[in-house]
């Protein structure tokens, strides 16, 4: 009896001992066959139990042998997963990548910074319920000036130095490169009835020498909202909301009186300088160049649509009021990206454009 149990213990011990030295898959399998295979040592002991006459002895031997078998199977699968893990880690170690090398080159292209800024500006107004419309870049004097209360001999024409198209009709030059997007106020109101809420993006042109703050081609966005009950308070609110969407939620705005023949009252909006935080000086005491030390940056011109203009397009100016504004996209782009010279924008140097 004792000898049977002892034999099982001996087999178990020697099997555990040998298992430790089975360091690869094939040694492990050989070990398994040797002890747990059909002709394995422990299997043979189990088989030999059938010949044991004493019932108690047979049961005790059987139990012991089954315990040994379970232990060896458990040890076997543990050793197997260890071997597998070791194999994988050596494979991984050999196939290590230098993760700092660049990825496979994909050609890169970008939208022009003015396009990007234009989209953001339009998106801000679209989310306030404005629609986007467009108009011609080459315009009639009528829409660009006359209908906006700027007749031929009006001194306000000096505010828009004009590029005229070489085309004469009845001894006059009636065609021009539009100097602003404002003609679309008229074009839109001629086609629609209130309520109106439209923004009109587009290129404009001036007869103007270029310098760090002036370009002769520029992109503007015209805004127009006309309805029963629109006030200057709404104008201030809408434009302040816009300024915060573009320049940050903490932005403060200031409105000063200004003159455009097609609005009354007229105004200009300023935002507090986001470089010096309205202080006029940088933290190190140097003067702020972004706002010219004033703490404020002029952003756009605006006003309440002149009642004569509403009447001329057939709106009842006693009932309907509205506001209009016009802003220059380049100026906003310069401020956003910290560009010091507007002429970079249309010089189209790729080393400049690739940065946006």
């Amino acid at each position, binding site marked *: 009896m004792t000898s049977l149990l002892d034999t099982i213990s001996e087999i178990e011990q020697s099997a555990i001992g040998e298992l430790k030295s089975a360091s690869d898959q094939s040694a492990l399998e050989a070990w398994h066959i040797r002890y747990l295979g059909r002709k394995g040592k422990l299997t043979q002991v189990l088989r030999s139990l059938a010949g044991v006459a004493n019932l108690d002895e047979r049961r005790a031997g059987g139990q012991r042998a089954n315990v040994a078998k379970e232990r060896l199977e458990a040890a076997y699968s543990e050793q197997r997963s260890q071997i597998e893990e070791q194999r994988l880690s050596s494979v991984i170690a050999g196939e290590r990548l230098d993760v700092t090398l660049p990825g496979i080159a994909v050609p890169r*292209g970008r939208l022009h910074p003015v396009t990007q800024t234009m989209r953001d500006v339009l998106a801000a107004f679209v989310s306030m319920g404005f*629609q986007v419309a467009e108009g011609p870049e*080459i315009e009639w004097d009528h829409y660009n000036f006359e209908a906006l209360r700027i007749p031929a001999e009006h001194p306000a024409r000096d505010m828009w130095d004009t590029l005229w*198209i070489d085309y004469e009709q009845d001894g006059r030059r009636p065609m021009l490169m539009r100097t602003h997007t404002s003609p679309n106020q008229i074009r839109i109101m001629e086609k629609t009835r209130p309520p109106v809420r439209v923004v009109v993006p587009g290129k404009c042109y001036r007869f103007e020498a270029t310098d760090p703050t002036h370009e002769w081609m520029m992109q503007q966005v015209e805004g127009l909202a006309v309805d029963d009950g629109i006030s200057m*308070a709404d104008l201030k*609110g809408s434009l302040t909301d816009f300024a915060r969407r573009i320049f940050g939620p903490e932005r403060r705005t200031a409105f000063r009186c200004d003159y455009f023949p097609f609005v009354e009252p007229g105004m200009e909006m300023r935002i507090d300088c986001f470089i010096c935080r309205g202080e006029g000086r940088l933290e190190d005491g140097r003067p702020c160049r972004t706002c010219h030390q004033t703490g404020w940056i002029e952003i756009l011109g605006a006003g309440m649509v002149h*009642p004569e203009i509403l009447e001329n397009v057939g709106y009842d100016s006693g009932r309907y009021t509205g506001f209009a504004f016009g802003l220059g996209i380049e100026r906003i782009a310069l401020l956003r990206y910290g560009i010091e010279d507007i002429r970079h*924008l*249309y010089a189209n140097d790729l080393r400049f454009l690739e940065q946006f």
Partner: protein
Amino acid sequence: MRVPLNWLADYVDIVLPPEELARRLTMAGVEVGDIMRSGEEWEGIRVAEVVKVDPHPDPEVERLRLATVELDEDERHTVVCGAPNIAPGQKVAFAGIGTRLIDGRTGEPTVLKAARKRGVESAGMVLSEKELGISEQHEGILVLPDEAEVGAPLSSVLGETVFDLDLTPNRGDLLSVLGVAREVAALSGGQVRDPSIEHAAEGKPIKGRVAVQIAAPDLCPRYVAALVENIKVTESPSWLQERLLAAGLRPINNVVDVTNYVMLEMGQPLHAFDFAGLRGGKIIVRRAGPGETLTLLDGTRREMTADMLVIADAQEARALAGLMGGSESEVTERTTAVLLESANFSPAGIRRTSQALKARTDASIRFEKGLSPRLPPIAAQRATKLLVEICGGHAAEGMIDVYPVKEKEARVDLTQERLHRVLGVELPATKVRRVLESLGFGCRWVPPDRYIVRVPYWRTDVKIPDDLVEEVARIVGYDQLPTTLLSGEIPAFSPQPLLRLRETVRDALAAAGMQEVINYSLTTREALAKVLGPEELAINPPLRVANPMSREYDYCRPTLRASLLECLAKNVRSQPGMLSLYEVGRVYLPRDRELPREIESVCGLVTGRRPDRWGQPTEDEAGFYDAKGLLENALDQLHLQAHYEDTIDYAFLPGRTAEVRTAGERIGLIGQLHPRVTGAFGIKADVAMFELDLDALLPHVSSVPHYQPVSPYPSVEQDLAIILPEEVPAARAVQIIKSFKLVRDVRPFDEYKGTQVPRGHKSLAFAVSFHNPAGTLTDEQAGRERGRIIERLKRELGAEPRS
């Protein structure tokens, strides 16, 4: 307009510091563009008293003297001085060693150094007006008023603060110190003191000696003439000269200075004629005769046209009305009597003349903004008073005042309801009245809702109730108004498919690696002639700008090609690898008597060597198929089926150019540029380019793609290789293969020309995807379909299967 604050203070108390006053004016619409302080540049220059003047020790030197100046009880300096007018007891401007000055001889800035003059050390300098930058005067030293405090900085004695105003065109009344004073009074709560116009009239009556006739009342609503005799024309007193200089005008003589002074003070331009230069004591305000000429004060001889207004005497034109006087009647030292003109001219007429003659003067700038016809008599009296006081003249009794159609006093009614509607806030009637009255408006409140407002004569810009709304709002302060968001109905949506299409294309091209550029819309005819054929340019000549800024930008571009190639030429040197650029913009196609057709156009180009896995340029040149891939990708983003047909175009290489078509309509062009074209732009490399006309493309784009159910059955992929005559386009084979019922998709994947195929033939391989929407397709079924395809390709295209 420059407004010296010392002058301004004559008419209104200045209770605010200059910066705060400037801020309030700016916020109220009177923009102070700059606060100029004369004297800021006089750092280190102080008031000194001349205590002693001795002759120079060297008896040879007669011109130089030794002056001892005192700045303080303990601080005396001896300087060598050449000024003839220096004398003990004078208060003078003294600069010590190291002070920055303007060199009296050269006019250049300089730093004062210790100097020996004829053996005597000079410890500084007593300064002339020129050295201080005040005037051109360099004959003698500047002598300061006796009350100047010895030792004080010069800027505290002579320094002047001047507001440089950037005025809006509607406010002609602010082109005067008095006009600005009225704004200051309203913004800081003061009273305006009008300048005095009272003067003695000792002379004989003007009536009977001067006759004024207005022959063109449409251009001259009012003409006032006054006569001052027995005057002596000389230099103006220094206070008058200094005020004019501070305001930016050069003193001329006392008569002209008085007219300029009153213009700056009240805004009314005046003209003084030498009375002796006017024939027959007559003034005729009339249109110029054909070919009539006049030599002006500036010495130019001008030929006038019939829509220009002149001031003539019995013989001929003596002045160009509202612009400039003539040289014949100029006031000179010999003048003893002047006829003073104070008139009102039509703004449009003055502006037309000024533009036609390209002449702008201080007078024309004021007239073209619109002045009140009620101002001339007031200004005439003010100027007469000053002429009497300053030039020692006798004023003739009375004035000639021709004013055929008297302007009514302007009255505007404003309702409280309108004020509220426009501003979005209720303002108390007392406040509204107070604001309007502070600006000189007469205001009567008629409860419950109405203000009856009398507009002061100088405010020619106020015509409608909303003008008054602005007056109230700007003085109260725009920042005091509430801030609300739009609350009304949002208008019905109207789609803008072209905008959407354009932005989709922009995104697709950028996402595929192309850089967007934006070029100027104007170009040159020469640049266009490089990319468009001569016939094309002749048939559709591009629009020209009549007044271009430069020869570089004088034609409205009918194509984006030229600008894009110029852009490439500028960049090609700094970019060694592959370059792909595109632009989206309008092109302008002229039409008869109409605005040009503006087409949203897209132009893209690819050039240079393709990159390898590292982004390094390889030996492979990008070409036609790179451009085509980019274009196909963009069109695919639009879910647009396009096909390509051989074509020819002036700018492109024959045999490498295709029209892009969809549903039978041409929507664009693609090809390799002709080396003649690229060469003309200085580009050596091959360039492939495409163009899209978004307006033509638009009708073929649907806003959303139509959904196709995904089949549960697998497809069978088989390749098919054929040999075709070279001239048969691959697209024809694709079209045939696609027409088979069991073919879901077909893609060419190889093209071969060479020794393995017969001459004049090419080998093409296609990956065909077979699929049966009704059930699982077997390889055998696919193979049978493939066989039928080959039969048809043989029959229709002369194709041979390739083993």
